[in-house]
């Protein structure tokens, strides 16, 4: 069965989105992107380098067939900078996708909800396909959906920490309430966590550090591909409900079914 992911009319075959920073070299990054089966990768505008091909992440990615590029605004501290980065990213990449990320603190890189919202309002008017990286805040998620974002991307944990789905309970609420796809971005370490996110009902995950920092990034990308597919299949199959303990056969109400 054809189980694709649709973001404002754009159809993706894979539910694994890949980030492209932190790799040991461009060849490894490309190999990981291919092994992941992704058809949407994000690349920071600050890593576009027209002056020096060897240092440029955009060029080699643009060569890949069937992979679409999503510039991101990493490095932007506020809405104004993010909007400028988005405009420049679209101009250079010809892609409508923009991963909107605004992290005013360069150390923990956690997203600024206020600036992100303000930037999204403006970018929505400019016909961008906006995927905002946000704290796992159900109210913010709805507000961003209301102004026309193509998806919302709550963090599982802080970027690069590998702490997994630390925000799982908030993400459950976001999924329950959302009309747009929910994509977990940041914090994942293991393919099992990606599977968990899909099992919960996330439509996709975005992974970078877990792949780039693995001993074998290409193999880890392939493992995440399987994890995502497995999680999605499980979600569609319908997980059985959880319970605290085995259910005893009705000791309190058995009198109702006596046959005297």
């Amino acid at each position: 069965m054809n189980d694709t992911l649709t973001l404002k009319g754009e159809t993706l075959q894979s539910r694994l989105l890949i980030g492209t920073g932190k790799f040991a070299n461009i060849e490894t990054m490309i190999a990981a992107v291919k092994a992941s089966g992704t058809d949407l990768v994000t690349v920071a505008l600050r890593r576009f380098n027209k002056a020096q091909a060897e240092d440029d992440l955009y060029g080699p990615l643009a060569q890949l067939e069937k992979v679409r590029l999503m510039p991101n605004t990493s490095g932007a501290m506020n809405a104004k900078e993010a909007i400028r980065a988005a405009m420049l990213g679209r101009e250079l990449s010809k892609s409508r996708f923009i991963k909107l990320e605004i992290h005013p603190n360069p150390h923990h890189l956690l997203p600024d909800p206020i600036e992100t919202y303000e930037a999204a309002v403006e970018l929505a008017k400019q016909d961008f396909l906006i995927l905002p990286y946000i704290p796992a805040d159900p109210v913010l998620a709805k507000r961003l959906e209301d102004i026309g974002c193509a998806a919302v991307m709550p963090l599982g944990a802080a970027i690069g920490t590998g702490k997994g789905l630390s925000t799982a309970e908030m993400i459950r609420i976001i999924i329950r309430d959302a009309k747009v796809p929910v994509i977990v971005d940041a914090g994942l370490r293991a393919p099992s966590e990606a599977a968990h996110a899909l099992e919960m009902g996330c439509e996709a995950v975005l992974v970078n550090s877990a792949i780039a920092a693995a001993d074998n990034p290409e193999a880890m990308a392939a493992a995440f591909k399987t994890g995502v597919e497995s999680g999605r299949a499980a979600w569609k199959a319908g997980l059985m409900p959880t319970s605290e303990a085995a259910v005893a056969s009705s000791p309190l109400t058995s009198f109702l079914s006596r046959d005297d």
Partner: protein
Amino acid sequence: MIDSLPNWLDPTPWMEQSQSTDLHAIKNAIYSDNPGERELALMLSPTARPLLETMAQRAQTITRRHFGRTISLYTPLYLSNYCNGGCLYCGIAADRRAIRTVLNIEQLDRELDAITQAGLDEVVLLTGERMPEADTSYIREAIERASQRLNNINIEVFPMQQSEYRILAEAGCTGVTLYQETYDPIIYEQMHRWGDKRDFESRLDAPHRALEGGLRTVGLGVLLGLADPSADLISLYRHATHLLKTYWQAGVTLSFPRIKPQMGDFQALHPVDESMLAQAIFALRICLPAVPLLLSTREAEAVRNGLAGIGISKMSVASKTTVGGYSETAEESTEQFSISDERSIDDFCRMLRKKGLEPVFKNYDAIYREPVTYVRSS
């Protein structure tokens, strides 16, 4: 002059731990969930020396998690070596028989062209103390010229007033490096014999003025060898965390300059060997996981190769510490310190790649250059 440090910088409460012989406590510090001054002091203890490999492995894991398998590259550009400073340890102090030069605009352009052609994109512009030959308006012009060619412009110059930092931020400068040199006020006074630099408190306050003036990043450091390294490194850590808490949006970086023999043969009062340097870097990486740690070409090839990616996340490359060194157009000048790692960019990058690390030339963009005014949180 001040006799003692303000409370927020004082290392005294942790000095006992910095001499700890409790191996078990040191091991716990290395793997602490929430390392702070106490853990830093324990890891700086001489008793931690046999645990250096353990610290290195922990430091590498943390570095890889936060910075990936990459090393950001930058290069220093000496604008002027005119100086009226009295720093006992420095090769261009006013009483050294140094050949003084300042780049004129044409020479500056040639230097910038040479750096641009080498593919580098991040530069630190350096001068000595405040002099008529290289004053704020000269530095502003240098920044403007650099910002036409490069995305990331930083300065390492004399401490300025907030309004001056503002002018430089508006010209395209994003960061300032300003080492306190030592946090020991008594040694500080002995080392800085005259001039503006004798004002310990004004220098200490300069990163605040820079961030409130519109710059985004401040680079801190101590000159290892001047004072007790444990005390200085604990204060350095406290200085960094104080700034991170005061200006929650600001970037802070740390460098690890070590005293090298200069003209005048200044001898380190507290020599720091390579193992102690590594110990300091690993310990600070463990305590400050997301703060960029820098290492310059002052250090030898083997040390730089060894520390790349293991704590260190950013390195200078193919540095010239003479004025006009890149394009070799200016007359001869005296260097501020001698470099040990003279490898070309290609050779250095080859080493990084062999270690599984990607050299990153461009990691910033000019669109993120407008002045950002931080407010001191109470």
